[in-house]
């Protein structure tokens, strides 16, 4: 992967994944890693920040005798994701104007 993914792109991807299905740290990391080249350690800070900003909610659920912390999107998170999508489309259009394709 040629491009570096800074804070907001990663935030948007995590919000989009969680919006589809509630998920937990390990699965989320694997899902993001399939598409973007991020290191395994980068997802925790993102999840933590999004939770602190109340864009994500967490709940614990036991699975196979151990605990899993699930992340779900909050109403504010959905709003933020919509905003992200709009901005992203605009951004892509602008970049395409320069790069063409």
């Amino acid at each position, binding site marked *: 992967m040629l491009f570096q993914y800074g804070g907001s792109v990663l935030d948007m991807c995590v919000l989009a994944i969680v919006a589809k299905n509630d998920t937990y740290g390990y699965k989320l990391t694997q899902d993001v890693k399939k598409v973007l080249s991020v*290191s395994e350690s980068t997802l925790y800070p993102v999840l933590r920040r999004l939770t602190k900003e109340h864009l994500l909610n967490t709940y614990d659920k036991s699975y196979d005798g*151990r605990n899993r912390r699930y992340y779900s999107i909050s109403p504010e998170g959905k709003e933020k994701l919509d905003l992200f999508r709009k901005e992203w489309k605009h951004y892509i259009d602008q970049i395409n104007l320069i790069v063409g394709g």
Partner: protein
Amino acid sequence: MNKQQYIEQVHFYLKGMAPKDISDAIVYLDEYFEEAGVENEQKVIQELGTPQQYAQTIRADVISSSPPPPPSQNIKQSNKTTWQSISILILGIFALPIAVPLIFVALILIFTVLLVFMVLVFSLIIVLLSCIFSFFLLVFRFFSTIGVDMYDSLYLLGTILVSCGSALLTYYAIKWMVRKGLPALSHWIAQIYQRLRKKEVR
């Protein structure tokens, strides 16, 4: 390193953060290892990086996302530091009767050593000059007595050689003192100065 050691080390490097932040991070990490499975333990450790690096990413994010501390805390802290500096000042004033004579003694010591060194070099230069002077004088005397008195000229020849040798010796002594002694002396003085400063700072 196994999972347990890894988590313990991350825990160590997170010290100083809010307990809730630490426990959240540890819970997440523990769960992550569990999900990856025991067979992938080493792989996960490798991908997460060293415990220090991992802790660093969490720390960096917490610092950037946490709001600045309330101002009341800041004032308290600055009060503490001014109080500290005042107490250090008072301590310094009380220490003055001891510190001033001590510094004075050190200065006198340095001055004396410098003086001794200079006097030594100066006297050696005088010896060198006198040796050179007497050498020429003796040579002149030697040529004027040659053929007149054999014992006299032999004696003079001996003293010429002695003055020649002592001139060379003193020349090398001066050279050695200036080349080696001077840098050593300045180094020594610098050391003493630094030690004094360190003590004052303490």
